């Protein structure tokens, strides 16, 4: 029995350590954002909402956030639709190069992002579309393409293909089967894949930095520009709002679509 207790102890300690590791920076950011003084200090000696008011003074922040939202939405949508096809091909069919494609898309190999950024910008200059919306969207699609494939493949492997045959024996043609059975079944994978892609695109800095110029700019870039010229806690205020909104969205999506059950099974 004492092994059991020791084992639990270790699991608990590791679990709490991981939690602390994830949550601690968020708490620091939160506290700093309410700091009363001009300089970042921790713990704060006085409190104010001044830095929240000052968010508006970050150069082009409204415009840049809107662009980031649009780019993330477009890139995540396109990539998720493509991933649906890719995931079906990987799970259901045999084709030349399947093994290579699968390991490329599904293995947790870290993509050297800066290298990809450089490659992309050269490629786009060749195509004469560098520093345009096209290049930014395509660049972000390259960045996030693998995530929805992974989540959709995961939800497909949990799912019983017999239900599609059942549907077709009940009179549904190929399209109707897809709309009424396949798609609803893959919904958790599709939504969490979309979310992954969206979030990774939304706050990406290293790819964007190669692809923006002039009026075309994104939220992380402007935020970083501000940080490099100012030392006040305004970015902390911005980040706190950002984390809050994202957490609410994720909580809502989880509640509504049970995305967590993707990995836990239903």
């Amino acid at each position, binding site marked *: 029995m004492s092994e059991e207790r020791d084992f639990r102890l270790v699991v608990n300690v590791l679990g709490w350590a991981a939690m602390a590791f994830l949550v601690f920076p968020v708490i620091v950011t939160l506290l700093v954002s309410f700091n009363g003084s001009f300089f970042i200090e921790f713990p704060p000696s006085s409190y104010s909402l001044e830095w929240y008011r000052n968010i508006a003074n970050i150069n082009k922040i409204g415009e840049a956030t809107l662009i980031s939202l649009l780019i993330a939405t477009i890139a995540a949508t396109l990539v998720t639709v493509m991933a649906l096809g890719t995931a079906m091909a990987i799970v259901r069919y045999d084709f030349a190069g399947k093994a290579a494609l699968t390991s490329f898309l599904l293995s947790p190999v870290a993509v050297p992002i800066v290298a990809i950024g450089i490659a992309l910008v050269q490629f786009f200059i060749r195509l004469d579309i560098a520093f345009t919306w096209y290049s930014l969207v395509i660049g972000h699609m390259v960045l996030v393409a693998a995530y929805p494939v992974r989540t959709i493949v995961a939800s497909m492997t949990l799912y019983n293909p017999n239900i599609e*045959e059942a549907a*077709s024996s009940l*009179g549904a*043609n190929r399209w109707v089967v897809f709309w*009424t*059975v396949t798609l609803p079944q893959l919904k958790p994978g599709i939504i969490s894949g979309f979310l992954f892609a969206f979030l990774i695109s939304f706050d990406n800095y290293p790819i964007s930095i190669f692809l923006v110029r002039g009026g075309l700019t994104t939220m992380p870039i402007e935020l970083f520009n501000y940080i490099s010229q100012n030392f006040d806690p305004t970015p902390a205020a911005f980040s706190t709002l950002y984390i809050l909104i994202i957490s609410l969205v994720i909580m809502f999506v989880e509640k509504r679509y049970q995305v967590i059950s993707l990995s836990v099974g239903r």
Partner: protein
Amino acid sequence: MARLDLSDLCFSVGALDILRSVNLTVEEGTCLALLGPSGCGKTTTLRCIAGFVQPTSGSISFNGQPVVGVPAHKRNVGLVFQDYALFPHMTVAENVAYGLKRRSVPAAECKQRVAEALELVQLDTLADRLPRQMSGGQQQRVSLARALVIRPNVLLLDEPLGALDRKLRDQMQVELKRIQRDSGITTIIVTHDQEEALSLSDRVAVMFDGQIQEVGTPTTLYREPGSRAVMEFLGASNILDGTAVSAEQDGSHIKIRDSHTLKVSDALESGRDVQLGIRPEQFLVETESPVGRENSIAATISEVVYKGPHVELYVETEQGLRLLAQRRIRGIAAQDTFVIGQSVFLTVEPDAILVFGR
């Protein structure tokens, strides 16, 4: 409802012949049990009928209308899978309504028919549940209701009771039989369980290695199987090699290896090599020597296995012939207690011995 004909149905994957000339007819409104060892091609046969795979050659017809080439969703076939294959994101009522929606049945009629179907399988009170909130037996009945509600030409059941425990299985067997009889839908039920096949169906087809070996009513197939393989497949049996030694008016004598001579009711010419098949329950087991009776074999019990309603006796004769006998247990009487090493006498009626050519 339709008569189903399979003729010369073949299906191969690459060089592998999975179905080799399946010929089968299921008369309108009857239930056929398809029985056979694992991997013999039962599921593949159903998948051909349902239209999920195209046969390499041969024909399938419903009421004489060929359906090969007709896509699955236009065949109007009801299917029940072993794992039920219910739509997990739909309620019981939505599952059952699925096929009606695809047929654009008006809402009021759809509701009415779903209610009727659920009543038929006694699930009318659970219409709003999701499949995951139901037991295996209940899910199985939803799956049956979903298949029946479209009034299919044929109903195909692939080991529908395979995942249920013994008791629920017996209960569902009775229910399934009632539903099939009441609805009068032409049905094929695949099963591994010979008892289930014998009790559920009007006719039984035994399949070996991609071919139908024999078709018949449950009684004829069990009592008078046409081959040794079918006999062995349909329950425990004793198979003995022998040679006909003398022919008589009312049968002939068969010499079993170098031990006993058994009388059978078939007329066989002398010298013919045959195989005899005897069901274990056809042996009369006695502890006293039955003087002057035919076909009596003295043996010693080597193993006793209690099986609830009967006891199985593994016996061996002095000449080394091993036999399996069965004896019903009535009452709690002490004389039914057999022990290893005990001497017994097995007697079998000549007409209870089946003769197969060798």
